[in-house]
């Protein structure tokens, strides 16, 4: 009896107050907390998948099952290839192509612009540098809708409403200021000695930039590209103002036409969402191990 008590006592001590590291009790709590947080984070996403798998006649159910009864891929088929028997064509690939052709151009342009000027901000002390940096920060305070109105009038004057060029112009610069800040922070963490050694060996400034700095900062560049890609990829409000013709729609506008009617197209909306979200999410989660180094390394140097 006594020995059982001692064992219990020891267990109690070990469980709640282990001397080194976290006690098992604390670890248990942390795991439980993280599992709960993960469920909250993932469940709404899973719901979209669930709804996309539901057959059309049971769209409106109050069931909470993750994999619905009589799961089917009909919604996917209709979203992708239309429904010939109902004489309905699918615009899905058109939307995707519109989005992709716009966003690829804008994100490549904005990363290129930001990468070069961030290098100047990081390595040179030129007159106007501090003013420039603070100006870039201030631009973040301009409400998104604020520049939209003049841009809209500007594009209308240049007859670029309803063209992909108009949207490219509207998107391309919006993410540049913040990208410059992030990349500048990252460049700051790369030791100057590396470049100086190369400069002494006779390399030009431009060469040290392209052959030392750019390869070394590839995680930050990848993150910057990912961010401006994601920013433009799911942008809705600017696109809605600039593009008014159906055949110019990007996918957020297109998908919104599904989401507007609750009963009719909820399944189609969910299926289209899953098809669009999977590649982007995979890319994002794959690069999430770089997120930390690419995003915050610059601001916590030392």
């Amino acid at each position, binding site marked *: 009896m006594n020995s059982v008590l001692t064992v219990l006592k020891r267990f109690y001590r070990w469980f709640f107050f282990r001397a080194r590291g976290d006690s098992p009790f604390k670890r248990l709590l942390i795991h439980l907390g993280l599992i709960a947080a993960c469920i909250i984070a993932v469940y709404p996403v899973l719901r979209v998948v669930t709804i996309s798998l539901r057959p059309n006649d049971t769209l409106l159910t109050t069931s909470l099952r993750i994999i619905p009864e009589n799961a089917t891929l009909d919604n996917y088929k209709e979203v992708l290839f239309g429904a010939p028997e109902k004489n309905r064509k699918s615009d899905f690939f058109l939307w995707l192509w519109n989005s992709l052709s716009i966003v690829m151009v804008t994100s490549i342009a904005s990363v290129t612009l930001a990468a070069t000027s961030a290098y100047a901000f990081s390595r040179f002390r030129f007159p106007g540098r501090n003013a420039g940096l603070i100006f870039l920060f201030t631009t973040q305070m301009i409400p998104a809708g604020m520049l939209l109105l003049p841009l809209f009038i500007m594009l209308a004057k240049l007859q670029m409403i309803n063209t992909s060029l108009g949207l490219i112009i509207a998107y391309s610069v919006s993410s540049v200021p913040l990208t410059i*800040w992030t990349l500048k922070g990252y460049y700051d963490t790369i030791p100057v000695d590396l470049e100086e050694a190369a400069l002494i060996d006779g390399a030009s400034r431009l060469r040290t930039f392209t052959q030392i700095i750019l390869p070394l900062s590839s995680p930050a560049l990848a993150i910057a590209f990912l961010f401006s890609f994601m920013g433009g990829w799911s942008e809705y409000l600017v696109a809605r103002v600039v593009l008014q013709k159906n055949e110019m729609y990007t996918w957020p506008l297109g998908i919104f036409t599904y989401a507007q009617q609750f009963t009719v197209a909820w399944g189609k909306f969910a299926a289209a969402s899953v098809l669009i979200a999977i590649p982007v999410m995979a890319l994002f989660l794959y690069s999430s191990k770089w997120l930390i180094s690419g995003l915050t390394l610059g601001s916590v140097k030392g």
Partner: protein
Amino acid sequence: MLPFFIQKGTGAMEEKNGLRRFLPTFLWLAAGTAVIWGLIRLIAPYSAGITLTQKIIVARITEVGGFLIALLVGLAAIEVYVYQIFFRGPRDLTTGIIVRALQGLFGLTLLMSVVAFFDLTDLIRLGDGPLAAVIRFPINLPATLQRALINASFASKSSAGLWSGLLLVVIVGILLAVVQALTRPRSTKLGLAYLLVTPAFIGIFFLILYPFAFEVKLAFSNASLGTQATKNASYGLIYGWQNLVTLFTGNVAKEAKFFEVLGRTVLWTVINVTFHVTGGMILALMLNRPMKLRGLYRTLLVFPWAIPTTIAAMAFRNEFDSRYGFFNIILRNLQSWFADVASHTGSWLVIGDAFNWLAQNIGPVSWKQDPFWAFVSVLIVNIWLGIPFMMVIILGGLQSISHEYYEAAEIDGASPWQSFWNITIPLLRPVLTPAIILGVVWTFNKFDVIYLVTQGGPQEKTDILVSSMYKAAFQFYRYGFTAMFALVIFLILFIFTLVFLRVSGGLKSATE
């Protein structure tokens, strides 16, 4: 393995032979080709039901490609111009005069184009005088050239654009080559810096600074749908005053008043940022330790950030449906479970009563009709969306804090709470300050969630300032008023940031 262009390290330093180094790239290319081929094979049988055709693709590529080439050539010319200013000096006096004259001419042409662009987009009005014609000359040059080429039957209508473009490139190229030939290299310290900054600032000038100036001008006008935007609008201080008075006393969108919306915006910002920072902090603190499944947790927790906002917002909007959305399903199930427990326990001690009370007070909610719950619903969505970003930022900050600080504090007998406030928070400050400022500014301006989830309804009771502004501009077409509205919002944020920076010690570390 990654393709070579994202791989770490430089080619020159690596000792691999060529083929091996490019092998991953080949594999990626092969995999990509296989995927595309497979997709085409899969899609081809159904192509009748798809509206995307080869013709559309080709048209888009020529349109965007042509635009990009024109842009790049123009940018290259400007870059060479800047390069020559900084890196090249004239040989002697006579060439000096020629070079400076040419450069002055080039600069003047650029300046004239910019002014003519302002005129074209209605920022300023040059009128129709002879001076205006001179200023408009450079920007009209391509069109003039095209017409001349067509008249001389040198080019057809479709190829005139291409030919005139090429002709312009040749002219500018010769000009720059002459300057290049007449100068010799000169050493410069900061030339490269300006060379690198120029393209970004040209973009920022035309797409941020210029629209901003335009907005200021618009704020002092009566532009609306009735005046055909800026075409027939009148400008003057009196219009600015009228806009300001309407803003503070009248209706901002349809029926909402300014201060009511401002109050809601502040509430929206404070609640969101508080939840983002505390939620992100708690999760980051939990993750910041060696433990099992850490990578899995982190990946799953980043989900709300990874999913495109538009999809998340629209999905949530459906989930707030009063019958079929999962929020109300869960609440309804909870209610019936509470009632069930209450009926089984009867009035046994307090428990039965407690469950009875719960069953009466927890239940499905009308998310879309009740203004309060509608506001809660947008908050839920935005909090859900925003926590992972803060978590990642804070986790990055935490990982850079050395363990030795905590060990020293523990030896000195500090409690975990004390070491959190005295070590973690101060050392996180360089990360937290910009993150919080940006968080506040972004949340203040973030209306895509509101627009997509509730569209500001019911009765504009969930509108924040920016969403009211969007409506005023693009539903009610009150352009002048909207511009003034935007300026006021900008000023509010600007003052907030100044105060916050003064209080928290500022961005010094970042600009150094």
